[in-house]
């Protein structure tokens, strides 16, 4: 099942700089997208979401951008902090089903 893909398994950035995590999807029926953050030995924690009718949603240091024509979304974290170091999962959902479809995850390391 490759409906949601995160092609970068890892990303390393310097503290204070911008982190950009990318996600691609194939199913045009998806109408809502979510980002989850996961620390080791913990479950995924909801971070931010975006509806398919929008192209941007912002919450503090976190902004998600959606390009529907390209079937691409990205999560921007600025400024990045060492505590942001975690695995970030992109997930998609369609209104007719409640299940989340996850990408493989990207491990972000923010160096002090």
């Amino acid at each position, binding site marked *: 099942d490759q409906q949601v893909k995160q092609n970068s398994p890892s990303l390393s950035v310097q503290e204070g700089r911008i982190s950009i995590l990318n996600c691609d999807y194939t199913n045009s029926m998806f109408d*809502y997208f979510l980002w989850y953050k996961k620390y080791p030995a913990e*479950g995924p*924690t909801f971070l931010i979401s975006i509806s398919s009718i929008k192209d941007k949603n912002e919450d503090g240091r976190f902004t998600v951008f959606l390009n529907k024509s390209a079937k691409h979304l990205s999560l921007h974290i600025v400024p990045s902090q060492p505590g942001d170091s975690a695995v970030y*999962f992109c997930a998609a959902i369609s209104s007719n089903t*409640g*299940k989340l479809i*996850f*990408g493989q*995850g990207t491990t972000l390391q923010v160096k002090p």
Partner: protein
Amino acid sequence: EPEVTQTPSHQVTQMGQEVILRCVPISNHLYFYWYRQILGQKVEFLVSFYNNEISEKSEIFDDQFSVERPDGSNFTLKIRSTKLEDSAMYFCASRGQGLSQQPQHFGDGTRLSIL
């Protein structure tokens, strides 16, 4: 902040044995889910549960799997005869009433190891 709790955190079971994974969803939530993550792979949907019945299940969720909400607080996943390939992290999630786009809240998972 209310959270989803799962027990045990780690379960080791002999192949062929039955195992029950337990979850206490957030108290006012009505929709419940199980997901699993095999080591090195994606988080995969198993089953969703609403109004005391299964809403949707994946191909993984075969006759060996069952879910139950035995009382007003617990939500369990049972695997009747475990196989080596059932070894994975199992996550329970819940969400409140309203649109399906509402975020699901996850527990910290149960690591199931089949020997």
